[in-house]
């Protein structure tokens, strides 16, 4: 049992966490993956109800089918799986980008400027409690049925985690360091730029990772309206026709691409915040 708190006790020396570590990590993951796969196959065989749990084989078959043109039909609903995914990824990325930017702005203002917080905090809390499904119809009235309402929904879903995390971290900036730069002559905004934001960065990153995840998990809601092509639209469609294998395939496509994006974010995080835990 190696507690990572251990890393605090015995800092890894250079060359320590090399190939071996890397191999072990992926080995472990592979084993876990295999175990899950076997579990799935066994459950599917035992249940023997494809609507309940489609077998891995069926999902694989769907993957092939939705990724190719067969019998003159192109993929699913006229689009290949990769196209569905691509369209949705574009929406997710744009929506997340807008949401994260907005969240950062709102969060910094909320954390740093007293009266903005007094008014904005309740508004943000109010808005983030609202279920997208409830207000989505209003978006249609305001923004139509094309890309705009989807991007709005995803942005609004992505904003709160960043805003809340940023505001919380900003308002808890380390007093000692803020004083240190103020003593050197930093203006208030320079202090925010040089101390408050860097010290909030770890929490902001957690917020961003959560935001992207939430944008992801909102993609079906966003694509309830005119959502094909789109992975969410595909899943919804399949759901209504009880094509559980397509639903599971869609879930995999969503989950795996989400995993990839999160991995990228985590690499950026590690590059950007070498000081984490150092003070």
């Amino acid at each position, binding site marked *: 049992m190696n507690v990572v708190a251990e890393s605090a006790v015995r800092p890894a020396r250079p060359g320590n966490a090399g190939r071996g570590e890397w191999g072990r990590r992926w080995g472990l993951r592979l084993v876990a993956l295999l175990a899950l796969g076997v579990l799935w196959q066994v459950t599917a065989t035992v249940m023997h*109800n*494809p*609507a*309940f749990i*489609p077998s891995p084989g069926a999902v694989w078959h769907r993957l092939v089918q939705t990724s190719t043109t067969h019998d003159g*039909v192109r993929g699913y609903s006229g689009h290949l799986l990769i196209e569905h995914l691509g369209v949705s990824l574009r929406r997710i990325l744009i929506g997340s980008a807008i949401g994260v930017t907005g969240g950062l702005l709102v969060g910094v203002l909320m954390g740093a400027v007293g009266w903005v917080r007094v008014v904005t905090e309740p508004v943000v809390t109010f808005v983030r409690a609202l279920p997208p499904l409830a207000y*989505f*119809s*209003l978006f*249609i*009235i305001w923004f*139509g*049925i*094309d890309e705009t309402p989807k991007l709005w929904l995803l942005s609004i879903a992505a904003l709160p985690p960043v805003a809340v995390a940023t505001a919380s971290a900003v308002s808890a900036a380390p007093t000692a360091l803020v004083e240190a730069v103020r003593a050197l002559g930093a203006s208030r905004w320079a202090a925010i730029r040089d101390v408050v934001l860097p010290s909030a960065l770890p929490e902001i990153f957690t917020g961003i990772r959560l935001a992207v995840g939430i944008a992801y998990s909102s993609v079906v809601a966003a694509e*309830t*309206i*005119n*959502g*094909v092509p789109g992975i969410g*639209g595909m899943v*919804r*469609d399949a*759901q*209504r*026709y*009880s*094509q*559980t*294998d397509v639903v599971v395939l869609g879930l995999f496509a969503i989950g795996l691409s989400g995993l990839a994006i999160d991995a990228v974010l985590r690499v950026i995080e590690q590059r950007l915040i070498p000081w984490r835990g150092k003070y």
Partner: protein
Amino acid sequence: ASGSPDTAQKTIRIAYQAFPSGDLIVKHQRLLEQALPDYKITWTKFDSGASINTAFVAGSVDIAAIGSSPVARGLSAPLNIPYQVAFVLDVAGDNEALVARNGTNINSVADLRGHKVATPFASTAHYSLLAALDKAGVKESELTLVDLEPQDIQAAWTRGDLDAAYTWLPSLDELKKTGKVLISSRELATAGKPTLDLGVVSTAFATAHPDAVDAWRKAEAKALDIIAGQPDAAADAVGKELNISAADAKHQLSQGVFLKPADLSSSEWLGTEGKTGDLARNLLAAAQFLKAQNKIDAVPDAATIEKAIYTKGLPGVLAG
């Protein structure tokens, strides 16, 4: 609890939907509770046939009100849900229709080519729209089909994002104010493509509690009588269930087609024991249509579908 006849407390779990039908009258006036006092009856509202099918797969319901299109899906692979159609709640009439917006120069179904048409996918309206297009010789690829829920159709319509839509009440009424009806489900029904709201019973439940199924059918029949004979009472019940005014409910009821209980066992619908009615053919056609759409794996054979029409005791049960 459903399948086993020897449970201590006998229960019936009914799934209903929020469309105007006799089902809501049965619920509101507690007709079934009165007929079966020693059963524990729970009513659960669902918002689509798909979710009702899901609930049947989960074994969570015994009896349900559900559209003919989802029933066709449920009877086909991969779902193969063991349930049977035991009642026709209503036939879509003028309450479901295809409307074109004023000023788009669309005067017939054929004119829809190149336009944007919305309908809730996987619904009876979707089925009807495709049937109408088929009848007019318009290919699906020649127009843009948009999947929207009725309330969203209404919103998008108001903005001018849509040229036409196949939907149902109450949004249909709003659309009609600024558009005109190209075809309604009533006409499609006459042309042999009816869409129906059906009452289905899980096979296990029907086997275990045939008497309860009979009572339920009688209650539904009574509700049909109320709709025909006491429109105000019917409107009141439906209105209260749907949280709308009695006037609105009355208007909505007037747009649907409600069969006479006696007609149900005619050859046009359920038929009788040993001689299944046209409903089976209708469901088979729907399944074939879905197969063509790549929405089901295989079309069940005619025998399977005939077996899924619950005609036990017909016409006797509904005659009284």
